[in-house]
């Protein structure tokens, strides 16, 4: 009986300890996430501009947002931006990681060089790229001129090239970090598997396709999720390079939320856009996890 009582007391004490550890985190989470989330949902139903009292508007702010061509353009831009950065960036990072995983001379230097953009302040590197993109005299146009191509493109000043220019910058910026993740992932792939396949006569491509790639799938999922988060949070390079222009060609949903709220003080529509962004991102995240359950090889 005493033993049971002691065990019960111990469990209670453990419960208190656990609660003491969890409660501070819960308070922070509640104040800085749950409360703003709830308030955001509530205030997205109000018409509210700075200097005016919020007025109940029901779904009106959502109707305003959905009927705005800029919202749909921003949604499309966000999707294209995500596909470009995550798709191309991930593929490039895998290739680079495979190269840098080999015993090649100066690989330490290459790894360092590749990672430098990621540790540079984004504002500074964006400004440098603004110069690189200058029509006629920027580094990009100069390089094109060297190979005989017409080198006078307004890269960030026209609606065709502005978004690809932002995507290219973002890939350049994040490539080092993504490659590093894949390099870490490659260390978990047992070399014996590749050696066995080599003895069986598998080509390098077959070894990658059948062994390395499946075993890298957890890393790939992680990279895709992290990069998707990064893309949806992207702001600085858009602000510095294009301010969402020209003609909204580089306005993403996040930038639209910022611009609507902090440039024009339209909090109702900004919050409605934020909630819609939430739904989009929640959908994408759910899809990613669904795919991960079916397609990811955890080596079990």
């Amino acid at each position, binding site marked *: 009986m005493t033993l049971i009582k002691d065990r019960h007391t111990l469990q209670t004490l453990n419960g208190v300890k656990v609660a003491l550890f969890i409660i501070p985190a819960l308070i922070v989470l509640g104040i*800085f996430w749950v409360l703003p*989330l709830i308030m955001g949902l509530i205030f997205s139903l109000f018409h509210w501009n700075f200097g005016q009292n919020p007025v109940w508007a029901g779904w009106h702010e959502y109707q305003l947002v959905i009927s705005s061509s800029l919202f749909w353009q921003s949604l499309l831009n966000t999707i294209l931006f995500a596909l470009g950065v995550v798709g191309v960036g991930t593929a490039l990072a895998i290739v680079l990681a495979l190269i840098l995983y080999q015993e090649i001379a100066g690989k330490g230097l290459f790894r360092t060089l590749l990672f430098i953009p990621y540790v540079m302040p984004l504002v500074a590197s964006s400004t440098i790229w603004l110069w690189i993109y200058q029509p006629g005299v920027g580094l990009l146009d100069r390089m094109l001129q060297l190979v005989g191509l017409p080198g006078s493109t*307004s890269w960030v000043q026209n609606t065709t090239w502005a978004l690809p220019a932002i995507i290219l910058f973002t890939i350049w910026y994040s490539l080092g970090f993504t490659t590093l993740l894949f390099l870490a992932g490659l260390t978990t792939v047992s070399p014996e598997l590749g050696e066995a396949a080599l003895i069986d006569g598998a080509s390098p491509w077959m070894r990658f396709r059948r062994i390395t790639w499946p075993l890298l799938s957890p890393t790939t999922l992680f990279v895709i999720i992290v990069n998707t988060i990064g893309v949806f949070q992207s702001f600085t390079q858009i602000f510095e390079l294009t301010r969402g222009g020209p003609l909204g060609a580089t306005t993403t949903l996040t930038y639209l939320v910022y611009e609507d709220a902090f440039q*024009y003080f339209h*909090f109702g529509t900004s919050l409605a856009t*934020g909630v819609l962004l939430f739904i989009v991102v929640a959908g994408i995240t759910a899809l990613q996890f669904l795919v991960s359950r079916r397609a990811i090889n955890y080596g079990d």
Partner: protein
Amino acid sequence: MHTTTRTLSGAMALVAVGSLLLAGCGQATPKASAPTSLKGPVTITFWNEMTGPYQPVVTAEINAFHKLHPNVTVQDVVVSNDAALRPKLFSAIVAGDPPTVSEMNPPWATGFISSHALVPLSTFIRGPQGLSSAQLHDFYPSMLNGGKWPDGTQYLVPFNLSANIMFYNKTAFQAAGITHFPTTWTGFYNDALKLSTNGRKAFAITLVHSYPFLAFFYEAGGHFVGPKGQPNAAAFAPNGPAVKALTLWTNMVDHNAAVLTSGYASDTLFGNGSSLILEATSAASPYLKQAAAGRFTIGTAPMPSDLTSATALFGGYLGIFSKATPAQQLAAWEFVKFLTSTQGTVLWAEHSQGYLPVRKSAKDLMTSYLSAHPAQATALAALSDAKPEDKPAWWSQFSNQILINAIDAALLHKMSPAAAMHQAYQQVIQEQAQTGDY
């Protein structure tokens, strides 16, 4: 779920301060009965965006003020730029903790005024520690008017302003046989064409800001804001000033006499000789000198005129917040008076090497300085024709988005100038319906 939570948390954080705004909306209009003299020690906070080379000048101003008012302590809070200062001010107002005094642009202040966050400075101006009629008339009228609202209340006073002028590559002009900067649009267009050779485009147009366009628009006799604060339909008309100014720019782009750039990259293009004419405020002068690095002589000239001579006036004003105690407000007013006094404004204009003095009397004290700094001298000479920034509630979205899009649409050949301005008018009417005027 991390993706979801992180992304939304930014937007939701906005709302966290929202509830506080509800309380803020209920702030009482500041009372006029402020103390008439400073007795005990008072600490005030001064928010501004004077980073880099400007920060030591602000520090020097504060130190000079401290000597005159040893019982007042000014705490200098420097924010990186106006894009950061604006939301910071907004958040502080909403949270009920604004600074005592801050630099701000007039269009922001319209929102602050409607939520009763700003003190009407007219109360102080007319008060015992106020300004005499002579002192008030010593301000450049175009600058002072920028801080005055349609009801006649002075909410802001000018501090760091500059006017748009033309910078040009004098060496290239002389090489092309052009002895003077053109004084008319026709001359400007023709000279730009003449200078645009070998793939070089003479005039650099930046697509990020609307203010370079506004100067041309004013020269065509335009006013975007009607007498009651509403959008002025005539300004957008097919034969109106906006279309006229935009047509000039479109023709220049079409005939390879103008290059489209973004942000401060236009300074770089001018500095390395890729473009030869740059419209900018006098505040750009030190940066352009640095970019040119002595490779060519920089000339300055007033804007070429069309129907009228005009230019656009831009920059920061000073406003005092109503949340401050009466003693702090009075101390802040003394600080504002000092910064905008002849002594304060000369110190600022000479050491910032680009901004303009806000008082006419300062010009006499700056004779030798101005002779060595032609950009400021040119801008000062243009002040009588300068138009301050408009400030109805719809102006921010109009000037930063609607007008920019219209300019972009025409310059990128998505629409004709007339169609672009017609669309802009439709959009600004909608914006006005949503946000109101003042």
